[in-house]
């Protein structure tokens, strides 16, 4: 008996969703080897993750808190990936947005909130977009590999950020009774720049609202407008699309403005809604995890919201077990890698059929 692989002409939506769910499930099973290495019972660990993420009130609201930046980042990435542009530096664009918001918040903290907060979001969007545009131009003009340039720009900004919080931006005051000698952090941003929260939670609702609305807008932009048509055309066949008169430069810049800008807004939310000041641990990898959720759930806004909520829950439960079982932070990377491998392997079943001949 010989097996033969045949390309499927079309795949039903049901099959796609089923295969993805099974892939993630298989990935989590494989990842349980990690827990065995640490002498832990995987069943206990997974039930602990699930319980702490989705079965308690605080778990659910915290999952939403994680979902906000993930949704913003991944809606933008889903769009830019469809343009065939691999923006891997969303983490840097998120940081750019947060840093710009910090500068504005510190200098214009006397403005009323109602005026200041919209300004912060706009500035964050602009800064994220600005940090994302150079790789788009380099790619369009000189064919510079965007995977490397976007990632390198993240590293560059990361070290500028470290320089600032260890030097020019370092807080001069004591926090409460404690002296933070040698510990680098900035001062807390002015009250007026703090985002309002839903009572009894840490959910900064303005960012949540923006995240949900923009996930729909980005989807409509991609699927219902002439610009979106050009993005998809360039994503599937750049040579044919440019031969047909579409501008590669303009399209890729537009896609990166959306992607970088949304990541920038996520940064504003993290600074003004959650952390309120910068520490060396300000970044928690949403820019990288967003790549996974964009790849997993990027087909439409609803699946993006569901995917990011579940992924946010995985992060919340993950943080819990990392603290209880003293696991290193690298566990998240390891999970991300394994999930991606299995989803990629699952894609094969979506695109091909194996038959006997």
């Amino acid at each position, binding site marked *: 008996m010989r097996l033969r692989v045949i*390309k499927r002409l079309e795949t039903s939506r049901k099959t796609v969703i089923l295969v993805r769910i099974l892939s993630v499930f298989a990935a989590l099973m494989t990842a349980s080897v*990690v827990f065995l*290495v640490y002498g832990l019972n995987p069943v206990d660990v997974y039930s602990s993750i699930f319980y702490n993420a989705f079965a308690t009130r605080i778990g659910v609201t915290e999952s939403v808190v994680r979902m906000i930046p993930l949704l913003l980042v991944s809606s933008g990435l889903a769009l830019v990936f469809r343009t065939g542009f*691999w923006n*891997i530096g969303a983490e840097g664009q998120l940081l750019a947005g947060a840093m710009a918001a910090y500068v504005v918040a510190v200098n214009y903290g006397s403005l009323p909130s109602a005026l200041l907060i919209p300004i912060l979001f706009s500035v964050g969007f602009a800064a994220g977009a600005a940090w994302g545009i150079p790789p788009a131009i*380099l790619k369009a003009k*000189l*064919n*510079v*590999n965007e*995977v*490397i*340039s976007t*990632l*390198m*720009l993240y*590293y*560059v*900004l*990361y*070290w*500028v950020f*470290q*320089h600032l919080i*260890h*030097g020019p931006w370092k807080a001069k005051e004591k926090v409460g009774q404690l002296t933070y000698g040698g510990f680098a952090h900035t001062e807390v941003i002015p009250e007026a720049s703090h985002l309002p929260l839903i009572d009894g939670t840490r959910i900064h609702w303005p960012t949540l609202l923006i995240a949900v609305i923009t996930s729909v807008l980005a989807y409509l932009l991609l699927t219902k407008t002439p610009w979106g048509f050009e993005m998809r055309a360039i994503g599937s066949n750049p040579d044919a699309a440019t031969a047909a008169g579409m501008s590669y430069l303009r399209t890729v810049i537009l896609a990166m403005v959306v992607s970088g800008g949304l990541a920038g807004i996520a940064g504003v939310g993290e600074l003004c809604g959650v952390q309120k000041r910068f520490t060396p641990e300000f970044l928690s990898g949403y820019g*990288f995890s967003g*790549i996974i959720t964009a*790849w997993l759930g990027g087909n439409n806004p609803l699946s993006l919201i569901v995917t990011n909520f579940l992924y946010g829950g995985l992060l919340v439960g993950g943080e819990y077990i990392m603290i209880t079982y003293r*696991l*290193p*932070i*690298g*566990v*998240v*990377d*390891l*999970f*991300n*890698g*394994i999930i*991606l*491998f299995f989803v*990629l*392997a699952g*894609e*094969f079943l979506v*695109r*091909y059929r194996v038959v006997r001949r």
Partner: protein
Amino acid sequence: MIEAKLVENILWIGLRSATPLLLAALGEIYAERSGILNLGVEGMMAVGALSSFATALVTGNPWLGVLIGMLSGGLLAMIHGAISIGLKGNQVVSGLALTMFGLGLSSVLGRVYVGNQLPVEARFLPKPVEPLSSIPVLGRVLFDQDPLFYISLLLALVMWFLLYRTKYGIIIRSTGENPAAVDAMGISVNRVRYLSTLIGGVLAGLAGAYLSVAYNPAWIENMTAGRGWIALALVIFSLWDPIRALLGSYLFGVVEASGYTLQAYGYSQWLLNGLPYLLTIIILTLGATESMRRRMGAPAALGRPYEREER
């Protein structure tokens, strides 16, 4: 005299920090020449660094460490091979997954080693080659290095020769340019690609081993610090040519090392940490410009799974 000493130091450190970049870039050149883009260099390097460190620590034998580092790099590359060759999956995403996987794995398994250093006998130490090492300036730079440094130099030459002057090189290059033609000759495209991807992984593992057994003989989480990505940029800068990769990585290493001396003049260490990444973007842009000018782009089939035409 003091200035000569400074130049000597910069060149010596520059070439040492360039060695892992060169090794990883050489391997990736072979993978990409066969049409497989492996963005997982950083992950393979990290696992290579950890496994070779742990082996050298336990056995006290640096060569055994290097061997295990190469094996584990190769093993990781085969995951990428299985997905991108066997399952015709997306190579960009698979490479990213490999980077995350490798960094995560090295962090999780390396936890017990954090803060450990290799005993002196388990390290590769620079040894002067008498009498060449007493040549002023260049003597120390070129002839007071560790064994892996010389191996990397030799590898660049051998790999250049194999790629441009032998039948095997022609087969690898053709597989990346026109896989259908290679297939028509009765050569298995997949086999060539698996083998080249394996070479890439083994050398990335060796690059990692250099970091943790020779360059900085200790285990630090995330000790690859983006070097895998810099190596990927050097591949493009080199126009996929091993000799140009040698020159490119040495240039990079020396410029980076001279940047660090600025710290002595009061420049911010944080900003200087960011310098290599800025330099990478510049190198990448220069490479891309050169590649356009010479009309010598990436291998034509790079990143595209091979599918035989249905008959």
